[in-house]
């Protein structure tokens, strides 16, 4: 330890192509590193990225990972058994029947994560009100457990009908398992997700069980490697959760279902921090890489969460109606919609003569045609090159040479010629269609939720986000765009901004009019005590906790709830339930265009989030550790559609852009991205180094 005594915090974000490392000192100095990911053993890539930065004293490591998602996508989960109520072994495989690709007779249902053979039934039954209809047959249960153990399962899920109303039989089974196999990881549905709906609960419990051995092994290896490399015997490791908070590695190993959307969540959290700093309450985030574009919403300075999503179903089309494509996971996550639109998206002409972009992607290998790595299909990146938006010679500050001729040739031969368009118009059309696809994701998190995107500021990041941001903003009527510094590393920064978050949910079903304010307060208090105990168990100091309370309400009979915040609500108000009813009706009116004043409203859940702020150090504003493209910057001809035509566009570095709005067209070229500012827009650099683009 001969280096400075200063401590650093380390953020490690592993993506499909790159591993991003961000190191921040307590004085705000930032060092970054981007190295290729090593999927066979991620730790290797991390170590190779860390070595040049050493030695440093590291206080804690924040980590975003795709290991859980990839385990599901590649079907490499642990061999898992499932115990269910007699009569219901097929719940997991039958699912909800609906399939996502209407009219496609070749569709295949995703195979169940536990094969039928390893799904066994036990005689028992709990009724809808939690009453025991049939006691658990302990002898039969022991037989089933022994049989499953003989199949050498590595993990066990237990999900019984109506266990959400009474967990007794699940707990009893768990005890029996402990007697017979003390070390076998067991996931109980009453612990993982004590909520009504047997399929969603079973699916969630099974995903947890099948990930548990894999994720704990991964985190153990990573932890050891980090301790080794950083020469620090006790190194706190935190994992980014899908809901935007971080959890300890130990907690993540126990509940891996919470880290499925670990990577994308980091980008939203980075946006949240930036939104806070810049005083922008309403933000639509766009995170676009080589394969997908992800959108999310921040409203009144808060991220939006969704209670359920599907994992492993490939890329969603941005529609919430497509069920059955993947494995449902009912844990709160940041509401992120994803579409298959990235720089690598393949372009084709369909049989009806329409132009299509994605969702297939050329990925990093073979990559776009202009990479000249063997890719023969035209991609969005090729179109952007033809349009002059991208530097014709290289990407990433010179590290990746491009072949512009190749892009021109494939786009002409495969796209422009067949649809009788000239090359620039075809390329411009591709750019716009790709943006229209992204707009579906943006609409899914905004318009589908009753939010008008025109009231939001677009934050665009990821390697390809800043290139498509203005077009997307225009298509949604958005007026203002903000591009943060180092957009390609933005998500990794998000890791360093995340607070320790503990989310709890308590089913609290009763009619709103019968809700007793004292009881409500009491239950919320108990939830807080429990959260505090759990956080203490993870070794966290319970310092400066920020509590966020909320309640889920719906009209009796409805299946979806609206969540109302209880913050800034006078909990001693005797008329609380009436006031909540009024707020609910107003929110229902706003979202769905009507309310039903005479219909009864019911409370469904209480929610509590405990945030413990991490020791964030401010990033010094003038951080410039990311190298700028080496070649001298000069003007370039760019095409902006038939009306505007080809224009001479100045190419600048971010530093060259001043605080005074400069008229487009112009391009800001950086190490890890290209920012496009078309005509009719202005761009300026704000005091934090963000590029702010506005319509003129």
């Amino acid at each position, binding site marked *: 330890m001969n280096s400075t005594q200063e401590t650093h915090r380390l953020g490690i974000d592993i993506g499909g192509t790159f591993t991003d490392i961000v190191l921040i000192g307590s004085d705000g100095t930032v060092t970054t590193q981007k190295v290729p990911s090593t999927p066979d053993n991620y730790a290797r890539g991390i170590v190779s990225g860390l070595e040049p930065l050493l030695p440093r004293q590291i206080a804690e490591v924040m980590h975003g990972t795709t290991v859980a998602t990839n385990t599901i996508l590649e079907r490499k989960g642990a061999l898992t058994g499932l115990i269910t109520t007699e009569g219901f072994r097929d719940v997991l495989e039958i699912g909800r029947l*609906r399939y996502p690709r209407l*009219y496609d007779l070749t569709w295949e249902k995703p195979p169940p994560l536990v094969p039928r053979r390893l799904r066994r039934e036990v005689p028992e039954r709990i009724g809808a009100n939690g009453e025991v209809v049939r006691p658990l047959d302990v002898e039969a249960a022991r037989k089933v457990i022994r049989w499953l153990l003989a199949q050498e399962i590595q993990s066990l899920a237990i999900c019984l009908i109506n266990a959400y109303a009474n967990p007794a039989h699940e707990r009893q089974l768990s005890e029996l398992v402990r007697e017979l196999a003390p070390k076998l990881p067991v996931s109980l549905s009453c612990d993982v997700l004590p909520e009504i709906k047997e399929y969603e609960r079973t699916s969630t419990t099974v995903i947890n069980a099948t990930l548990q051995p894999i994720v704990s092994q991964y985190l153990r290896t990573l932890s050891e490697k980090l301790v080794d490399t950083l020469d620090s015997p006790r190194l706190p490791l935190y994992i980014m959760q899908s809901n935007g908070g971080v959890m300890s590695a130990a907690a993540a190993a126990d509940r891996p279902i919470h880290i499925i959307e670990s990577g994308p969540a980091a980008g939203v959290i980075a946006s949240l921090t930036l939104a806070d700093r810049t005083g922008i309450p309403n933000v639509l985030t766009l995170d676009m890489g080589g394969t997908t574009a992800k959108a999310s919403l921040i409203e009144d300075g808060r991220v939006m969460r969704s209670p359920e999503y599907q994992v492993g179903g490939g890329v969603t089309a941005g529609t919430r109606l497509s069920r059955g494509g993947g494995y449902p996971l009912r844990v709160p996550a940041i509401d992120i919609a994803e579409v298959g639109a990235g720089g690598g998206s393949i372009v084709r002409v369909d049989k009806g003569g329409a132009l299509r972009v994605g969702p297939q992607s050329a990925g990093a290998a073979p990559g776009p045609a202009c990479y000249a790595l063997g890719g023969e299909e035209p991609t969005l990146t090729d179109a952007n090159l033809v349009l002059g938006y991208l530097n014709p010679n290289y990407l990433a500050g010179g590290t990746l040479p491009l072949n512009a001729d190749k892009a021109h040739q494939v786009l002409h031969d495969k796209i422009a010629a067949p649809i009788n368009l000239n090359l620039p118009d075809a390329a411009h059309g591709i750019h716009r269609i790709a943006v229209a696809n992204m707009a579906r994701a943006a609409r899914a998190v905004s318009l589908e939720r009753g939010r008008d995107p025109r009231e939001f500021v677009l934050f665009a990041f990821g390697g390809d986000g800043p290139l498509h941001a203005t077009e997307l903003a225009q298509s949604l009527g958005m007026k203002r765009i903000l591009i943060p510094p180092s957009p390609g590393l933005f998500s990794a920064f998000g890791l360093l901004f995340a607070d320790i978050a503990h989310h709890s949910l308590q089913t609290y079903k009763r009619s709103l009019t019968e809700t007793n304010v004292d009881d409500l307060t009491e239950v919320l208090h108990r939830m807080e005590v429990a959260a505090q105990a759990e956080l203490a168990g993870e070794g966290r100091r319970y310092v400066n906790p920020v509590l966020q309370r909320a309640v889920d309400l719906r009209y009796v009979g409805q*299946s979806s709830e609206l969540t109302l915040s209880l913050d800034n609500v006078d909990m001693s108000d005797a008329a609380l339930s009436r006031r909540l009813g009024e707020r609910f009706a107003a929110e229902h009116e706003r979202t769905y265009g009507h309310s039903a004043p005479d219909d009864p409203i019911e409370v469904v859940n209480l929610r509590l989030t405990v945030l413990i702020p991490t020791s964030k150090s401010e990033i010094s504003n003038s951080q410039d550790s990311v190298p700028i493209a080496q070649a001298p910057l000069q003007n370039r001809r760019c095409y902006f559609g038939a009306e505007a035509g080809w224009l001479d566009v100045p190419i600048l570095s971010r530093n060259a852009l001043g605080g005074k709005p400069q008229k487009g067209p112009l391009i800001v070229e950086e190490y890890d991205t290209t920012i496009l500012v078309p005509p009719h827009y202005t761009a300026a650099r704000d005091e934090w180094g963000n590029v702010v683009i506005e319509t003129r």
Partner: protein
Amino acid sequence: MTNRFDPITLELIKNALDALVDEMALALVRTAYSSNLKNSMDLSAAVCDANGQLIAQGLTLPLHLGSVPEFTRAVIAKFGGEMREGDIYITNDPYEGGSHLPDMYLCKPIFLDEESPAGFVVCIAHHTDIGGKTPGGNGCDATELYQEGLCIPLLKLYDAGVVNQTIFDFIARNVRIPRQVLGDLRAELACLHVGEQGVRGLFGKYGVQQLSVYFTELLNYAERLARAEIAAMPDGVYAFTDYLDDDGIDPDAIPIVVTITVRGDHLTADFTGSSAQVRGGINCPLSFTQSTTYACVRCLMGADVPNNGGYFRPITVIAPEGTIVNPLPPGPVAARGLTGFRIANAVFGALAQAVPDRVPACEIGGDTGVSIGGYERIVQDGKTQLRGFVFLEFLYGSWGGRPTQDGIDGVASAVVNFSNNPVEVLEAELPLRIERYGYLADTGGAGMHRGGLSLVRDFRLLAEEATLQIRADRTKYMPYGLHGGKAGAPSRNILNPDREARELPPKPTLTIQRGDLFRHIAAGAGGWGNPFARDAEAVLADVLEEKVTPAHARDAYGVVIDAQTWGIDTAATQRLREGKGIPTK
């Protein structure tokens, strides 16, 4: 190739419409009260142009698709000259734009600056009760429309923004569960609200003139794609007959006959020869027969053909009046969905001859409708009341074996994309307990590609007494196999299998008592290709998954499983399979 449109703007508008109709459907799902809407998603949402032509439909129910233009045509015929901003029209009349009484069709014209509407948004939802003699509104035992429930002629639910409360009141007084039905009706209004806002946004963005041009082009685009797909099919005449077991009243089998003629880029489906109109409520109105035919042909189109009325154009449906596929009023139609399924089975059977490499063997052939309705005695404020409950669900099953893949075990129909109902939600909301829901081994039609399995579901009544009404079929005429594949197992209705086990007919209506257990076993789906040519490893996998028993593996597939090692007995298998026309592996 010539382009009469700018392909880029076309794609942009198409995406916007697709997103919009999904948003509409979602608004309905989120706000609905009944399980059949919020869980099963028995609904549709659509956008139509100024002429009422279907421009876009959400990822919802294909069999509603073709009935939308019939509905808007009826609306324009009745209100054409006098439509006003803020109007909303409603009907459930099967003989005037509707389909069967539980389906309430709503439509709102969108006015911009013009005198006449620039377009329409449409919503269809299946309500859980509509009065009439049988709870749930799907009984087969009515012999005329008047017995089937409240028939709402095409009316203005809103007149220039002013609600017609009389209609709401009439509905409320005529159904068993008014709060639920009115809640669902408001959910339909939410759907129209979301749709109207979206359509206004589109018109604002592109202008009425340009958007109307593109609506037309979208229809033409779909037509072009459809014609190209049909032209790629070999010309010829392909006939197929499938049967319904009975109509719930008369015991006779009911033939559905279809003759499909492919000529160039046009396809005709002629149902001449199908049964005359029947007494029971399974007659299928013409619009539904058309919808079904369109949806089947659409399944064979490989490209991403837009879900709009343009693709109907090269398809002609001939259905003689007074037949089961085009009944005369007041023929009963409540359970017409079943006949729709059988029409789909027949059309696919004919198309399998035209394009054998693309058509699967028969899926289970009709979802089973189960309605259980009655009254619970409750005491409120010291007064005894009888509170109605109606349970309604449509059970689906599995797909048939396919040219290159097995059928799927447990999936919605290719033409009706429903979800099932969560067992725990049903138990929390209704006096019922579901005691079993799962697969039955050996029920999938044997084939080189196996048909999907039967699903079994057990319902126990916890209320004092209730009416149980079932709409099932395929007890005698099983889902067919193709190219040597075997038919799937028959469907069954059993009362109290845990006691005296009384076998019920396919379409009974009966009274059941507290503690009674009703079991429905759906049919298995058909197999595709010679079962003795099925990869022995695939048979072994099915045995290990307990979807096929070792005995069935031996008898139906000629594969012998060694009971000791749970491996294939190769020698014994070879002996059994010899001379069965399979290439030895």
